[in-house]
Structure formats: C-alpha cells, structure tokens
C-alpha cells in the first residue's frame, strides 16, 4: 500500500502521521491522530460535523485529503480550550443549553470561533448565515445562536478590559 508521511501542526503541536493517499483528513485525524472530537455526519461536506480550521480557514475535513495537511496548521475542537480553561464559546454552549445530543457541537464551536475571530460583533443574521453549513437536528438552533451571541459579548468585554 502506498502512502504519504504528513508533517503538520495540530492544535499548536507538531504532529506526524502516515496515511494512504486517498484518505480524507477527517479519517486521518480520527483514526491516525486520535482526535475523535472531529465527527463524521455525512462525508460529503453537507453537515459540518467535521469542521476544522486549516491555516485559519474553516473547512469540512471530509472534503480535504490527509496529504493536504502537509505543512499546514489545523485547529480542531480539542484545541479550543487553553490551559484548563474552557473557551467562552464552550462555556456559553453549556450555560445556554445549546446542545442536546452534542454530536454537532464540535463543528458548531469551530465554526462559531471562526466567525468571532473574523467578526467579534456579529448580528443575529450574520451568526445564522455563518453557521448555515452546520446541521443540528436537536435544538432548532435557537439556543445555539443565543450562546454565540453571549460568548461574543463576553469576548468583547474581556478584550475591552485587557486593552
């Protein structure tokens, strides 16, 4: 079996993995690196459960090959919390009951962080469109949108205090 050796940075750590050429980054992250927080809901880029950022850009990892991660920087849900502290989005998802079954939650968190990194003060409509690539079947999105609004507010307040 032919394969490739991939050297990449995942959640700030230097990581190497070997995978077949045709293997998706989703499968490589789950099966080779052990990052099981990246979920597969469809494998066709329609549900967003496998959302990650690749060099800061939000992508469905099921639509990227493992080999394409060479030399890139990846962030997954496992990389959101820092130093034992939950990210304000993670905290807010819990306090706002923004998850029921939770299978879509990793993808939503990565997508929401990607939004807030670009736009710290999004409108409700901007939040809804930024998260439109992520399917949730449990919540009707109500509490997810509220959780993102609340986290955005907290992040803005924190950065105002530290400025």
């Amino acid at each position, binding site marked *: *079996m032919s394969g490739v050796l991939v050297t990449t940075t995942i959640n700030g750590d230097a990581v190497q993995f070997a995978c*077949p050429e*045709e293997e998706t980054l989703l*499968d490589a992250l789950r099966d080779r690196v052990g*990052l*099981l*927080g*990246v*979920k*597969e*809901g*469809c*494998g*066709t880029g*329609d*549900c967003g*459960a496998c959302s990650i950022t690749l060099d800061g850009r939000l992508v469905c990892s099921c639509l990227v090959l493992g080999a394409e991660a060479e030399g890139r920087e990846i962030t*997954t*849900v*496992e990389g*959101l*919390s820092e130093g034992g502290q*939950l990210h304000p989005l*993670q905290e807010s*998802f*819990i*306090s*706002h*009951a923004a*998850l*029921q*079954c*939770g*299978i*879509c*939650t*990793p993808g939503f*968190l990565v997508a929401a962080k990607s939004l807030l990194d670009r736009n710290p003060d999004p409108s409700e*409509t901007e*939040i*809804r*469109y930024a*998260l*439109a*690539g*992520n*399917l*949730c*079947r*449990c*919540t*009707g*999105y*109500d*509490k*997810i*949108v*509220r959780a993102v609004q609340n986290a955005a507010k907290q992040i803005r307040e924190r950065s105002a205090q530290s400025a």
Partner: protein
Amino acid sequence: MKHDNSYTGQDFKVIGTRVRRPDGIDKVTGRARYGADASLPGQLVGRILRSPHAHARIKAIDISKAEALPGVKAVVTADDLPLPEGLPGDVAQMLENSMARGRALYDGHAVAAVAAIDAKTARKALQLIEVDYEPLPHVTDVDAAMQPDAPVIHDWLYTSGVDPKPEKPSNIAQRTEFGLGDIEAGFAKADVVIERSYKTEATHQGYIEPHACLANIRPDGSGELWVTTQGPFVYRNVCAQMLGMDIAKLKVTSSEIGGGFGGKTHVWAEPVALALSRKANRPVKLVMTRDEVFRASGPTSSTSMDIKLGATRDGTLVAARAEMRYGDGAFPGIWGMLSCMTCFACYEIANCKAIGYDVVQNRPKVAAYRAPSAPMAAFGVESAMDELAAAIGMDPVEFRLKNASREGGQSHYGPVWGPIGIRATLEAVRDHPHMKAPLGPNQGRGMACGFWFNIGGQTCSDLNVGVDGTVTLTVGTVDVGGSRASLGLIAAEELGIPYEQVQVNIADTGSLGHNDMTEGSRGTFSSGMAAIFAARNTIEVLRERAAKMWDIPVEDVTWEAGQAVAKGSAHGNLKPLSLKDIAAKSPKTGGPIAGHNEVVADGAGVSFASHICDIEVDPETGATKVIRYTVVQDAGKAIHPDYVEGQFQGGAAQGIGWALNEEYIYGDDGRLQNAGFLDYRMPVCSDLPFIDTMILEIPNPGHPYGVRGVGETSIVPPLAAIGNALSNAVGVRMHHVPMSPPRILKALREDGQADRGPAKVA
C-alpha cells in the same frame, strides 16, 4: 417497597432550576464518545452491500472472490443469520430487514456484508461479491400499493382487522378503527361540511450521527456490543434472540447518542456486525454512511388521507371522519393505527370515526419518528379545521376552543381524559402578543394544535451513596437530550442535597435490570419516577443507620432537608446527622448505603401543544420562510426548563422542515433519488427564526412531581400551522406536504382553485 406514584403538589427546592448538565464539558471538548468512537484490539472494518433494486429475487450470491481477497476476514449473507427456532414474527421481520433472505425488498436492502482489515479492503471486497438478481415488479406509493392489481410484496400477508378474513394476500397489513357515536347522524346535523384529501411524503429522523456499533463475539459464544441506541436493553434482547445467544451473555453498552428521534429504537446493522464478528472471530466496527442511513434506516410513513369534518353554525363540531393510509415500508407496522388514535384527540366530537390502513411498500421499513404518525394526521385534521372555521365565519382559535377536549370527557380512542392542557394552550395562544403582531405583504399567520400520548414502561434504577456522602444515580434510559441533568435534580430534590452532590450515570446491560427504550417521551417521566422511589428507599436505609448511630428506634428518626433528625422530646439533644455524617460511618453501621427501584411506570400523562407561526412567501419562487414561531405546550412539570424548551424548539424545527422541504423522492424505478443532506433539505440555522416557547404546567396526576413527557408533541402542529399560515398569506390551500417551492408555485399559478374542492354548504 411499594410507592405511590400520585402527584402530591409538594414545593420544590431544586426542581425547575437551570443547572449545568453533567455531560456538558465532554461534549464541548470533543471527549464524549459516540457510536463510532470506540475501538478494540484487532478490530476489523465492517461494510454492507445493498440492493440497487426496489424489489428483486436474489437467485444467487457468490462471495468466493470477496473471501479470497487478502485482508478480508469474513463475508456474511442471510445464510450466516439463520432464523432461530421460535423467533417471534416481528423480530424475524427485523432480522430480514437487517439482511435480505432470498428477496431484496427495497433499494438499500442489505444483501451481504464483509469484515476486512481496513475500509479500503472492505470496499473492494463489496465490489467482488456477485449477486444474481431477478428484478420483480415494485410499488412505492401507498395508494398504488393498495390497488387490487398492485404487486403483492408478501404472499403471507393477509389484512387483519377486516371481516370476513380476506382470501388473498395483499399489501394491506391491517385495518384499524376508532371512534364514537354515529357519524351518519352527526353529518346529517351539520350545517357545513368540509371534505378534503391530503398527502404527506416520507421524511427521515435526520439524526446527525449515523448508525454505528462495535461488535465483539468471543469463541465461547459470549459477546459485547457498543452501539448508538435509544435502548441498550432492548437491543440486547433483540440481538441475542436473533443470534441465538443467551441474553445474559451479550453485554450492550450505549454510547453517547448523536440523535435518535425514534430512529434508534430499532436494530438495523447491529445483527450484521455481530454475525461478522462471530464469523471472523474478531471485533468488528460497522458505521453506516449517510447514504445508507437514508436508504436503509427508518423513515416515516408516506401517507394519503381523506378527512371530513362537519359543524353546526354555532361552531359545534358534530361529526368527523378520517380515512388514513400509511405506508409501513417493507414490513407491516402500527403506523396507520397510531394515526387513528391521535387524529381527533384534541377535540370533543360526539360522532367520529377514524379508519387507518397499514400498507407495505417497496421502501425501507418505517421506524418511529417523534410522535410517530401524529404529525401527518394533524396536518389533515388541523388544515380542515381552519377551512371549517372560515366556512362558518368563526375565528380559528375560538372554534378550536369551543370544541376542545376537556377533563372527564371521552376520548375517541378509549381513555376518559384526566386533567389535560389543550384548552390552556389554546387560551395562551389566543392571548399571546404574537397573535396581534402586524404582518407585512405576502406574510400570513397560522396556528394548529397537536397531541401525543407519552408512555411509561419498565424502568429500573440504582442510587448509591459514596462513603463521602456523594450520590451516584444509575439509570437505564439513554440520555438523548439532557435527561441526566433532570434526573440529577430529582435525586437531589428527594434527598434534600445540592444537585452538585449527585452524579448520574447511564448503565450498560450488565449493570442494571431491564429498562425499556428512551422513547414515547418516557425518559424523564419513567426514570424520574424510579429515581424518586430509589431515593425514598435510600432514605429508609439512612434513617436506619442514623437510628443505629444514635441507638434510638428508627421510628423516631425523620429525614428532613438532607439530614436525619431525631424527633420526640426524649432525643432533644441529638444534633441532626447529614448524609455525609451517615455515609462516613456506613462501613461500621451495615455497609454500603443504596436504594433501588424496579417499576412499570404507569400513569404517563398525555400532552397537548398549540403553535403559532408567521411565514412569508416569495411569490416569484414559491419559497417560504418562517419569520416568527411560538410554541405553547403543557409539560406537566418542567424539571429542567432549558431542556424542556429545547425539546419544544427541536420538535418545532423538525416539523418546519417536514412542512416545507423534507421528502423522500422515488423514481419510477423505485430507487431513492435524494439519499444525502444536499438533496434531502433539513432546516439550517439561516432558515429559522428564534423559536419562542411557553411552558404550561398542568400536573400529571400519575407522577409524584406531575411530570408529563415533553419530547414529542411539538413536532405535531407545525405542518398544519404552516399550511394555515400559507393559506392566510397568499390564499392557496396546500394539501400536499412538503409545501416545497415548486408545489407552492404551482398552486399560486393555478390560484389554488385546481387543488381545492368546494365547501359543501347545506
């Protein structure tokens, strides 16, 4: 110890607070383990070969080339899943649904499976399996399947519930009937009669986590199964029966579940994974693709129905008739029967008859989906209710209120109503500011009601007190939407301790007695009841231990606010003992402190909801957007209001998707054309507004805290609420769900006339 499940009206300390769920951190950090997230040493990858035909005889399957492929460790067909002697008929059908036996009954029906060292080898092996099919005539439409000249799918299927018994097999599995009074006399009294026909298309539960399991059968015949399921105990019983195993020798562990909505109450690929593991003598992980989930696991019925309602000019519903034809997929079900039982529950109608047909068709076997069968029947009845209200010139809410079911009244399906919430939800809708908000051009408002039974069932729980006074509550109902938080609140309330002192675990089948599925909105109702009783049993033990510590009679010890109190003047100087104090001494006062309860949780409380919906239609494209939505539902008692609201919102969102876009589309070849999320269009975040909720609490007399189930009812009203809103927005009355842009555009172009029968005014 026998406990009383009656509602007592007690005051609560922690019930009703919005605490953090115990599984929250794992779920926001990616640590929660779902069906596809477990591994075992030496595990293989399982994959399934599925029929490309809607109906075909399987003349031969040649697996020799697949077996010879290096890396393939097992190939199985129906030959590897022989029918054990005495297997009940419904379980045998479930097994045949898991693996075709001589005939493929629908596009996507499993015909063979492989286990190989990796996914690539497994995929390659599937291509090497040679199946010799002889295509047979098929039928996917429910009305077509009922025709006398339709291809008969099962030669053993004779319609039940008809007299005389049929002499020939047909696709009509059963006819059921419920009702009251004399409908002919009732319609004769009516001043206005509305008679309409409706159709609804099949939808899928759409859980984001595909079916996934890890099966491990050992050479001694024992085994284990890690699986995403709504009911590990039922999966254990069913799989053990299918595989011919002793129930105790199969341990089933439910993973975290990534959504179920009824679709994970049923085994699909699990028996196949177990058979692969048995044959390969290795653990096998089997995860369905999304395509397989759509083609082979539980959609709803597609339906066709005729609804006739009659009222007098003063607004009294005097007669109603419903004939509802529900597709069951490839095997008979009870879906038409459930439609009969739910369709008229909201109203007091002296003369009514509901007739249901369960019909088999060349589609995947239908599974439960959140208040199964009720949304479609409500679409018909609640649409006709609005037309009837308009025909007699009455406000639709007032018309419903005038006819709403009431306590002490006779339901059309059997029970006499206890305290119920239909009137209260309607009054709340009538008085809601949403009803008075202004509307713009191409916008319209609609409302509709919904009903679901809710169920109780077999339940078992353990409550164990740690030596430090912390409490572990172990339940056997899978947590699908936050029930661990609710059950932790219940244990804390009973024991009089903080919520944070309780940890709730979900048991595997080796750790607790049998529990029925998490279905029928029973999780918090039933496990809550068992948790209350287990806690009360624990308190008995705590009182005994305190009495021992104090050396006084146990009758002199009461349990108050989390501590043992010595009552009576003789013990006036004894300082109360907390749970922690008693737990610390437990090794010397009799050992571990625990309480258990095994119960058939009777007394489930029915649930009603009324919804208000504003929509806006784009007249150029027919696209419809929901712009405001309000759910009013009776919860009995909301244990954790956040997750009650979450159930209301989630149910409404699924109903909105069903109403506007979601449908199984079959080609003339009987093959499913849209087995993916791109073409099967579920609502995304930008499709929906905030979904406002109002929780009413009309206590259920059959539960100590008044709990009813809350999980299902809110999927029932949206189809009709949106249909009614559409009619009010643009003047077209839709009779076919989903009300997708092409259907709305067609109706707009025909100005609705072609699609609408005249109201008969007597």
